[in-house]
C-alpha cells in the first residue's frame, strides 16, 4: 500500500525539518559566550612585575590584542606581527626611538609605523571602543617589554602622550 502524505503536512514537515537541520548545525559548532572583559584594578603601589601580570590580562581581555589580531610565538601567514621577542627588538625598530618610546607610539599612534609585510589597520587603543586608561596602557607596555626583554615601566613613567 502506498502511503500518501497530504500536501499541507509535507509543507509543515519541510519547514520543521529544514529549521531543525540548520538549528542542529548551530548546536554542533563550538559554543562560547562572550562576556564584557572584567574591570582590572590598578593601584598606586603596584610594581613593574604587578603591571606585567595586569598587562597580560588586559592583552587578552579589554585591550583585545590577542583576540584575533596579534599572536605570541606563532609563525606562518599572520594577520598582524607576532609579539614574541618584541621586548628585545622594540629598541631597533625605528632609529632614534627607544624601546619604550616605540611601544608607546605603537599603542597611541599605530599608523605611524607599519611593520613591513603587514597592512595598516590597528586602532589607537586609548580611544573607544577599547579605551584603555593611561595606567592600563603602562601595564600593557610592561607586558610587551617582558616578551623577550626586561620590563622597566612603572606607574610613574612618563610615556610622552
Amino acid at each position, binding site marked *: 500500500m502506498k502511503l500518501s502524505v497530504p*500536501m499541507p503536512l*509535507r*509543507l509543515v514537515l*519541510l*519547514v*520543521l525539518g*529544514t*529549521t*531543525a537541520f*540548520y*538549528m542542529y*548545525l*548551530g*548546536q*554542533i*559548532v*563550538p*559554543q*562560547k*559566550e*562572550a*562576556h*564584557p572583559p572584567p574591570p582590572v584594578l590598578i593601584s598606586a603601589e603596584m610594581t613593574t612585575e604587578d603591571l606585567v601580570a595586569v598587562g597580560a590580562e588586559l592583552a587578552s581581555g579589554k585591550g*583585545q590584542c590577542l*583576540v*584575533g*589580531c596579534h599572536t605570541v610565538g606563532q609563525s606562518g*601567514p*599572520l*594577520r598582524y606581527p607576532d609579539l614574541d621577542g618584541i621586548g628585545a627588538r622594540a629598541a631597533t625598530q625605528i632609529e632614534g626611538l627607544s624601546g619604550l618610546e616605540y611601544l608607546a607610539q605603537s599603542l597611541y599612534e599605530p*599608523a605611524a609605523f607599519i611593520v613591513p*609585510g*603587514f*597592512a*595598516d*589597520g*590597528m*586602532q589607537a587603543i586609548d*580611544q*573607544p*571602543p*577599547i*579605551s584603555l586608561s593611561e595606567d592600563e596602557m603602562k601595564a600593557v607596555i610592561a607586558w610587551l617589554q617582558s616578551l623577550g626583554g626586561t620590563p622597566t615601566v612603572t606607574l610613574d613613567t612618563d610615556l610622552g602622550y
Partner: protein
Amino acid sequence: MNRNRILFGIGVLAFVSVIVTVRLGGFLVDNEYRQPDRQVAAQEEQGEAELTPRQQGIADEQAADEAEAQARPYEEAEYRTVPFVGSRVTVWVLAQLHLLFAAFVLAVPLFAFIIEFVGYVKKEERYNKLAYEFTKLLSVSFSMTATFGAFLTFGLIILYPKFTNYLMHIFSPTFLPYVLLFFLEALFLYSYYYGWGKFGPKMHLFLGFMLNIVGTAIMFIANAWLTFMMSPGRRDDVDGDGVPDFVSAVSESGALLSLRDAFFNFTWMPINIHRIIANVAFGGSIAAAYAAFRYLQAKTDEEKAHFDWMGYVGNFVAIIAFLPLPFAGYYLAAEIYAFSQTLGIQMMGGTFSWLFVIQAALIGNLFLGANYYLWLGMGRMEGGVHFQKFIKWLLIAIALCFAVWATPRYAISSVSEIAAMGGSSHPQLSYLGQMSAKNTAVNILILSTYMSFLLYRRTGRQSVHPHRDLLTRAQAIVFSSAAALVIFYGVYGYYVDAAIRIRFAIPQVYSVLAALVVITVIDLPLYRNAAQSGETKWGRMPAVSQYALIFIALSFTWLMGLMGYVRSGLRQEWHVYGVILDTSPDAYTPTLGFATQVVSVTVLIFFGLLGVVFWLSSLGGKKDWEPKPVADGRDQLEGGQAA
C-alpha cells in the same frame, strides 16, 4: 451528532464552567467567618468595633504598601525585563519579523514594477497578470510589517527606555519625514494594487515607480538608525596625511555633534546596497514559494501553467539578485574592517567566525537548490536532453565548492585528535579553511550557477545568429578565463603575505562580474529570435521542484536571520559602538547554539504568518460564497436557516 453541535456543546460547557468558578469563588469569599452581627452592632454603638485578625492583617499590609509607594522617589527606568524570554530575545524576534516582512514589502514592488514595465513594452498581457499576482501578496504583508513595526517600537520604549530615548535625541529630526514617507507608501501601495486596470498603463507604472522610490527612502532612513549604532561617525582624511581619520558624530559623552555624520555614517551606504540586493533575492524567493504553494494546490492545467511560470520568474529574480550578493557582502565586510579592525576581526576571526560555517551551509544549499530547480526545469522543454549531460559536471563543481566553503580553519576535535593532527587545525584540510580557498569557491559557485542558467536558457532553442559559432566560442573563452583567473589568485594567495593576499579578492570578484556581464551581453543577440526546437510546457514540473522552491525560501529566511544577528551582535556589549555601553543583564554575546534557536523560532513564526498571508492572498481567486439550493428551490443559509 454532527461536529458543529459537539463544538457548540464544548463552547457552552466552557462558558458555564467559567461562570460556576467565578460564582463559587465569590461565594467562598463572601462567606468567610465574621463576628455575629449583633455583637458588631453593639461594639459599634459603643465606638469600639474591632477588626478580625485577618481584616487587621489586610489593613496593615495595605497601609504599609501605601506608605512605601508614597516614600518611593520617581526614577527613570534604564531597562525593563520580560519574564522567562528576556528583553533582548523579545526585541530580537520582533525586529527580525519586522525586517523580514519589510524586506518582502520593499522587494515585491521592485520586480512587480519591472515585470509590468516589460509587459507594457512587449505588449504582452501575461506579464501584466503576473505582476498583479505578485502584488496581491503586498496588501496583507504591508499590514504585517506595520504591525511588527509598532510591536518593535513599543518593545524598545518599554524594555530599553533610556537607550530608545537616546536614539530619539539623536534622530528626532528624521522621524517626521519617516512617518510622512510611510503614509505616502501606504497611499502608493494601495493605489498601485487597487488601481490595477483602473488607471492607464503609464499612470499605473508611475504609481509603481513612486512606490519603489518611497519604499527605498523609508529603508534608507531606518538604515541610518541601525548603522549609527555600529559606526557612529565617518572616516575622512581630516588632517591631510593620507590616512582616514575617524570623525565621530557624537561627543565622548554621547551628545550629538553632527546629525549629518550620524545619518550618513560609515556603514550606511554599504548596508543600503547590501539590503536592496538581499531584499530582492529574498522577496523573489518568497514570491516563488507562494507560486509553489499555489502550484501544489492547483486543480487545472491552466492554473499549474500559471503558477509554474510565476515560480520560475520568482526564482529567476531571486537567483539573479543572489549572484552579486556575495560581492555586496564582501563590500560591506570590507567597509566594516575599514571602519574598525576590531569589529572586522570579531566578525571573521573572533566570536562570530564559526557562524560563517553555518552561513556556508546555507549559501551552499541555496546554490544547490537553485541549480536543482533549473535542471528540473529543463524537463519543461522538448530537446532538453541535449544539455543534461553537463549537469553531472556542474553538480561536481558545486559540491566541491560547497565542501571547500564549509571547511573550517580549525576543526572541532578531541584531545586525541588534536594530538594526531599536531594542532587544532588539520595539516592539509585547514588550507581549505583559509580565505583564499573560500573566495575561490564562492566565485566558482557563482560561475557554475550562471552556467546552469545559460544551459537552461539554451534548452529547446537554436541560435540563428550568423556568427553563432564565433560568439559561442567567445563566451567559452570569457568563462574559462574568469574561472582560471579566480583559481590562479586562489592558489597564489598561499604564497604571499596577508596584506597582499587580502587584496586578491578584488580581481577575483571583478573577473567574475565582468564575465557575467560580457557573457550576458553576447547571449542576448545570440539567442534573439532563436529557433524553437520544441515547445515550453509550463505546468509540467514535478512536485519535488516546488518543494525545492520552498526550501530555497526557507534557506533565504534563515540566512537573513543569521546575518541580522551577526550585524547586530558585532557591537557586543555596546548599544552604540564605543559610545553607549549596554549595562543590562543581556550585555554579552550568547552562544551560537542559542542564537540559532532564536533564529529557528523567528523563522517558524514567520512561515506560520506567511501561511496566513498566502491563504488570504489566494482567497481572491476563489469563487464567491453562494447559498446552498434546497429541494423546494429556495436558497438555504449555512447552518440550516432558511433565507
